């Protein structure tokens, strides 16, 4: 059952507001979230415990997040590392990834985006070799980018595919239209507040899934966004 991925996370972030939001967003049945607000607290935790994924802020009181990453790698720990940084600098990004971070996310970000990235890291770590993501009657081959409903293949476009994975990673959460737009089109998308084209993608995903015999899991949420739910 790959759909229920329990995560053990460490959130290293000095900004209280952000740390709490992340913690709250990730805490759900089965998940364990620990937090560290300072460099020394973070170092203590990584020396004592192992995590599935560490969310690592670069600028910390008392030290630099990059040296935490170096410590992890020097000790050959295999914790996934996602750098969250205010520095949208290519050099930083490259340095982080070169040092063995799994991903790099620039502030500000949507929690749903963070969740999707973390889920991807954990999937890669935990189920090495298997690229199958299963949710009820839907099974997705992440490598081949194919999708089956009740073992019958369904044709999805690239964006529809990304959208469905994004939804599944954020199961049970309301995802704002902004977050969806930014996920699918990147930061370049600052064209008015016209999200009609998101609606048409979601409509297509729902239609294709239901025509293939799957349940309708996607609900509109008060005109603000959408929610993927199995209830």
């Amino acid at each position, binding site marked *: 059952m790959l759909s229920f991925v329990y995560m053990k996370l460490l959130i290293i972030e000095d900004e209280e507001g952000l740390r709490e939001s992340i913690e709250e967003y990730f805490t759900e049945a089965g998940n364990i979230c620990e937090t560290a607000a300072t460099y020394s607290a973070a170092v203590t935790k990584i020396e004592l415990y192992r995590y599935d994924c560490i969310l690592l802020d670069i600028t910390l009181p008392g030290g630099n997040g990059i040296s935490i990453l170096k410590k992890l790698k020097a000790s050959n720990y295999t914790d996934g590392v996602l750098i969250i940084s205010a520095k949208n600098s290519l050099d930083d990004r490259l340095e982080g990834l070169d040092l063995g971070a799994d991903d790099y996310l620039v502030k500000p970000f949507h929690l749903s985006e963070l969740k999707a990235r973390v889920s991807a890291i954990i999937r890669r770590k935990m189920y090495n070799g298997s690229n199958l993501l299963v949710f009820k009657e839907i099974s997705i081959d992440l490598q081949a980018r194919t999708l089956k409903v009740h073992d019958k293949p369904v044709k999805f476009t690239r*964006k529809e595919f990304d959208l469905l994975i994004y939804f599944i990673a954020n199961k049970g959460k309301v995802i704002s239209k902004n977050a969806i737009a930014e996920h699918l089109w990147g930061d370049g998308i*600052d064209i008015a507040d016209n999200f009609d084209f998101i609606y048409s993608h979601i409509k297509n995903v729902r239609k294709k899934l239901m025509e293939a015999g799957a349940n309708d899991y996607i609900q509109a949420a008060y*005109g603000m966004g959408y929610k993927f739910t199995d209830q």
Partner: protein
Amino acid sequence: MKLLTLYNRVNIITTVVVMLITGIIYYQAISWILNDQNDKALKVEEDEVFDYVKLNRQLPQVFESKDQQISFAEAPANSVKREFINTQYQKEKNEYESGRGLVSSVTVNGKYYKVLIVESKVETEDLIQIIFAITIGVILLLLLVLLVANRLILNRLWQPFYSILRELQLFNVTENREIAKTDTRIEEFNQLNQAVTLTTEKAKLDYKDLKAFTENASHELLTPIAVINSKLDTLIQTDNFSERQSKLLNDLYGAVSRLSRLNQSLLLLVKIENRLLHDQQSINLKTLIEELLAQLEDIFHDKQITVSTTLDNKEVTASRYLMEILLNNLIINAVRHNHPGGEIIIDLNTDSFTIKNTGDAHALPDDKIFTRFHKSSGSDGSGLGLTISKQICENFNFSLNYQYLLPHHTFIIKF
């Protein structure tokens, strides 16, 4: 007007005026002196006549002389007033020259005679003419020498000034180049050089401070924006919103994402200006444009915009990250300022990239559109897109220009 031209003009006018005045005075003085000489000679002749009359009690014989003629005529007693006159000198029959004459009188044996002594002035005038010609010659020569000397001296003298000027013209507050020190012994230019160096250093320092401020401010803003964003994401997980609340939340999301994009743009701008992005690589623009267009396909479709392209293969060496931003900005710009059912035409060849779009039927002010925060009415952009595009182009020595050719707004990048 050039300094040299103005200087020459003033110089020549005063020289000519002074020379003319001098010439006139000179001419008058020489005329007067030579006339005086003539008059003295006439007086000598007169005295000779008087002496002759006194001695011989008869009029002297009138004989032909080369340059003097004397004539006597009877006249009523005391009717002649003694005076010098300008008159004619009869050289030969029917050939006259200008002359100087002395009218006098003499009484011989009780008879009253009018005496007229005339001298030719030809030689005098010749002399004046020669002197005048020499004077004119000297004036012309002096003018010529002045012109040449001025040119040489000014050019050499003002050389430091021109080199400082050149330095200033090349000065760019964003560049790290120093104003070169101009070597000169002239104190004023040394002072100018110092003042220029100080001012430009100050300008650079201020600019650096400003950039640092922008960067720091934008950085500091990132965290609160991130907190607002994450709190909003958390807030919408709590249940049951009324339609009114949803609308408010949507507006908040919109505002926060705009704020965050604005902030990113500012940071990016600082980074480009600081030339902090150096992932130079060879990029096939054709492929890049095709990728970007594919990414935006839904948006074209949604706005019913027809995109037509003519793309040649073109490689540039640049930062891929920045080229993506540049092209994306221009394409998004063409979408944002388009109308439903409009069109976008993209051309790529080895020399240039051209993007044309339909839109409002009036030209944009091409001197303003590339400045920061210049926005056309109704634009939802950050007002930094074109500034960033321009900066990126400058970074790679491309030129970016705008034209309005009915019915298309056109942006051209020349490689």
